[in-house]
């Protein structure tokens, strides 16, 4: 599947994106990332709407929040009763690094067809400190280690 990539910035921090699947055999992928600093606030809503049968969608949202930045991440998968045999997935992953950073994640589903596969996953958490420690034991500074882990978090292998 081809992923369209989008990164949000401080000047473009509020976004509502609709992914419309209205043609048979359509497959759409979307990868959205953002990095927040200071008091930046991100507000994102992704709407995946399956109107016809045999369509496929993947939406991945990844955010890293430093300092006092925050994010309100919403998303929904809507599958119409006509849209049988659809396959849809929504993922929201937020990394909280700043001491006063915070986030809300609301992945929703509205499913009106029965022959479907629809799922979502959300995680909110901090960096794995054992991974930071491992990198530090290999000679990296704390900041370098964090930077490397954040880079890995934001650049997953998409297939």
């Amino acid at each position, binding site marked *: 599947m081809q992923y369209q990539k989008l990164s949000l910035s401080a000047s473009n921090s509020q976004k509502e994106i609709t992914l419309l699947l209205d043609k048979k055999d359509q497959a759409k992928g979307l990868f959205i990332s953002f990095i927040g600093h200071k008091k930046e606030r991100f507000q994102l809503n992704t709407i995946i709407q399956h109107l016809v049968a045999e369509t496929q969608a993947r939406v991945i949202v990844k955010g890293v929040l430093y300092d006092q930045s925050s994010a309100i991440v919403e998303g929904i998968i809507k599958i119409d*009763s006509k849209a*049988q045999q659809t396959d849809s997935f929504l993922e929201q992953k*937020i990394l*909280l*690094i*700043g*001491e*006063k*950073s*915070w*986030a*809300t*994640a*609301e*992945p*929703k*589903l*509205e*499913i*009106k*067809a*029965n*022959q*479907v*596969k*629809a*799922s*979502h*996953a*959300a*995680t*909110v*958490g*901090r960096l794995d400190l054992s991974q930071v420690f491992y990198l530090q034991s290999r000679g990296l500074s704390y900041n370098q280690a964090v930077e490397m882990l954040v880079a890995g978090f934001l650049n997953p292998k998409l297939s």
Partner: protein
Amino acid sequence: MSYFVDKKNYNRKDDDFLQKEHEYALGWADDTSKYAFKAPKGLNADLIKQISKLKKEPKWMLDIRLKAFKQFLKMPMPNWGADLAKINFDEIIYYLKPTKKASRDWQDVPDKIKQTFDKLGIPKAERSILAGVKSQYDSEVIYGSLQKYLIKQGVVFLGMDEGLRQYPELVHKYFGSVISMQDNKFAALNTAVWSGGSFIYVPKGVKVDKPLQAYFRINAASAGQFERTLIIMEPDSHLHYIEGCSAPIYTEGSLHSAVVEIVVAENSHCQYSTIQNWYTNVFNLVTKRAVVAKNAAMYWIDGNIGSKTTMKYPSCVLKGENAHGEVLSVAFAGAKQELDTGAKMIHLANNTSSRITSKSVSKDGGLATYRGLVYVAPKADNCKSKVVCDALILDPQSRSDTYPSNKIMNRNVSLEHEATVSKIGEQQLFYLMSRGLTEEEASTLIVSGFLGDIVKELPLEYAVEFNRLVSLEMEGSVG
């Protein structure tokens, strides 16, 4: 609901019997003209004063009721969730008193009511594994008993009205402390007109080793049921409380709006299990919440099968360090049913953990919704929460929604949420059918397995009942 009706003669192959079952096993409604006191329809301050007077309540309780009634009138209906427009508050009977006093001895219970209880199998259940039985027949506790060794240990298990009479200080201290009347419109309504429910007090260090059980049942047509349950657990105590619900057939819609408050003190462990099977014209709008102290744990096991509309989100306020909260919620939404269920976990202290598991099945045009909240306060470090929601949709007319909300205000947290909606796997079906099962039997087996988590948490009698309920719901689901 067959388990209580005809346990011995139950036979899946008996078509006539199943036909009757389908019509609804508990489908009888009592003639209410024989009740000792039946309030007129509708609600006003005078009626509340009358209820309070009949119950011989202290003045402070009447004041709370009247204040809550004002609050109820003031508050708007919830503008989210299920459609509640069909509730007509003026058509509901708010208080019914079937016999004049609560009787402890089975012999004293009037025949008419005894027959109903016999159909439900309550004395049988009591004789076997249950430590005490409290039944709410409409609004008053009619029959209740508690095994002696529990009384010796200082455990109190009474109807809420009796609890208020015998332990006014405790009730005064804790009533409304977990769920205030300002919480929501239906909590306010309950506070104004509450009647019955259970009052449980477990003293320090006491471990109640057998589950305590209450059985609630709405009987008269158009009756509201507003039971109020208060469970107070002192430090180092242990309790498993079970509440079962079933209601007979009606012509008009009924309203059930309960409030359950639980105070779980340090190092205590509380489990609250419910199997709800209201008839499909009942609005079931319930507020349930527990406050969990340091090192304590609260488990809500919540099975929802019946009712027209259910809105119920058991919650844990994790107030002390290392507190743990868990909700296991199971919903089976059939024709014309809307089950809006879920859970709330409020993390207020360090190292608190929670887990929500939700399983729902929708069938014949039913709508099953998961609605939940995980909140981690800015000052709560090292919290962990995991939410898993699985849904099965059995036919093209049915619908499943998921509305989770995760509000994380602290970075030292691990929150995981996942949800899937799917159908019954073709391969699983094919495999079972190749082993000689019909499609219907195979589907029933898969659905029972899908909902299986709840069965493990229930005592044997309830587990058997739950499995029977699921198979009955699945009858005729294929072809």
